């Protein structure tokens, strides 16, 4: 029992160390080695943050969906804990994505915020999953909160493609596509060093994400164990 906890801790430590190394290498590649963009210059380096963070946010939402579905099906606490942890990290990374987009937008578009389809979509996702966390915290009975949140986790995820479609149509019918979207596929005429920097950043973010997720999950798990122990005491 204690041994498995120790190995789990060690594994988390290794994951955290790997994440740290990957982040360092990623930073070096994206800030020093990758060349500046031909059109946007140095500012384009924000992309090495922006794309990985939105990717991890989407990964989070997918995990919320999977955890919610499994929880409703099997009623096992661990699935709910996973969904809760993933939702919290999803909100964090979505918020970071919006901040990065905004900082990127200032020098490229001249404004901090524009109703670009991507930015808008990300903001809506933030609202949905912030609502998910609100719903959890506003229902007192723990099991009810878990099931209600699971339903919202499923419906929210199913709604994402529809929101995505509507927001993109909304923009494209009213104004030309944003600067962010190149006419060519992104992997054409891109410097190989840029691609490498992006790949390393992706890996770094994923490692960081799973490290934080395992930490957050374990917090939830221990809280649940404490409750279980207290329940034993109550008898």
């Amino acid at each position: 029992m204690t041994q498995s906890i120790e190995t789990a801790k060690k594994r988390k430590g290794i994951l955290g160390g790997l994440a740290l190394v990957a982040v360092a290498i990623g930073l070096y590649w994206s800030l020093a080695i990758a060349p500046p963009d031909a059109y946007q210059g140095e500012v384009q380096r924000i992309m090495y943050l922006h794309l990985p963070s939105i990717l991890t946010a989407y990964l989070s939402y997918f995990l919320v969906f999977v955890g919610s579905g499994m929880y409703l099906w099997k009623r096992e606490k661990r699935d709910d804990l996973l969904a809760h942890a993933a939702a919290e990290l999803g909100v964090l990374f979505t918020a970071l994505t919006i901040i990065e987009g905004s900082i990127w937008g200032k020098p490229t578009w001249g404004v901090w915020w524009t109703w670009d389809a991507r930015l808008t979509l990300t903001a809506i996702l933030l609202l949905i999953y912030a609502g998910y966390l609100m719903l959890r915290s506003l229902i007192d009975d723990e099991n009810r909160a878990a099931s209600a949140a699971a339903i919202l986790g499923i419906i929210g995820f199913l709604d994402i493609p529809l929101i995505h479609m509507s927001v993109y149509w909304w923009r494209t019918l009213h104004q030309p596509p944003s600067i962010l979207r190149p006419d060519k596929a992104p992997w054409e005429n891109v410097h190989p060093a840029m691609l490498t920097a992006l790949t390393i950043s992706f890996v770094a973010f994923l490692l960081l994400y799973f490290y934080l997720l395992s930490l957050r999950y374990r917090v939830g798990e221990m809280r649940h164990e404490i409750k279980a122990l207290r329940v034993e005491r109550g008898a």
Partner: protein
Amino acid sequence: MRLTINKLAKAYGFLWALRDVNLDLPPSAFVALLGPNGAGKTTLLKLLAGLIAPTAGSIQVDGTTMTANNAAVRRQIGFLAPADHLYENLTVWENLRFFASLYERNDRAVDIESALEAVGLAQRRDEFVANLSSGLKCRVSIAKWQLLQPGLLLLDEPYGVLDGNGVDLLEGFLRSHCQQGHIVIMASHHVSRALKLCNRAVILHRGKLSFDETKRQPWPSFAQAFDEFLPHGESWTS
């Protein structure tokens, strides 16, 4: 109708409301469910009604395990909440017809009429439930379950709101219901009344079954258990 409860447990947050409850009830069992406040009586009734899900253990009705969405099992279970479970802004008649049609049982006008007759409310069939006193609402509930004829009828402290006449009505209904092979489980603090009606007594104490015996006369083991767990209750030997 046979009811089997297997290692049933329910926890609310930090507390076990019910732990390791086993009970096997044959047809025509009439159980008096006794115990001090907070012993878990209401929790047990709600679990049996399927309104809350157990933390552990199972409930079987005629060999079928009860799950949340088993309509066939739910049709068999009735819960007589004294002045609850009725729509305030429907008339007595409309309430009965609505529930009878949901259960697809005895929903003809004559059936409803005779059920109302039996509880002495035939004259007031078109009054809104909101205008009835809680004693009369309880009578409507009695009529409701008389119509629906559940195989397992649960009652939670039905005596509080009824007058003498109403108590006679209720007890008459419960006796005849039980005689038809249905199971009745009644939680009550009116120990003497409950004991007179029942053919089996169960005492819950801090979430556990501490006593479970078929009624006999005299009953020294019950007297002992009663004094141990319900020392401040009213005298039951009346």
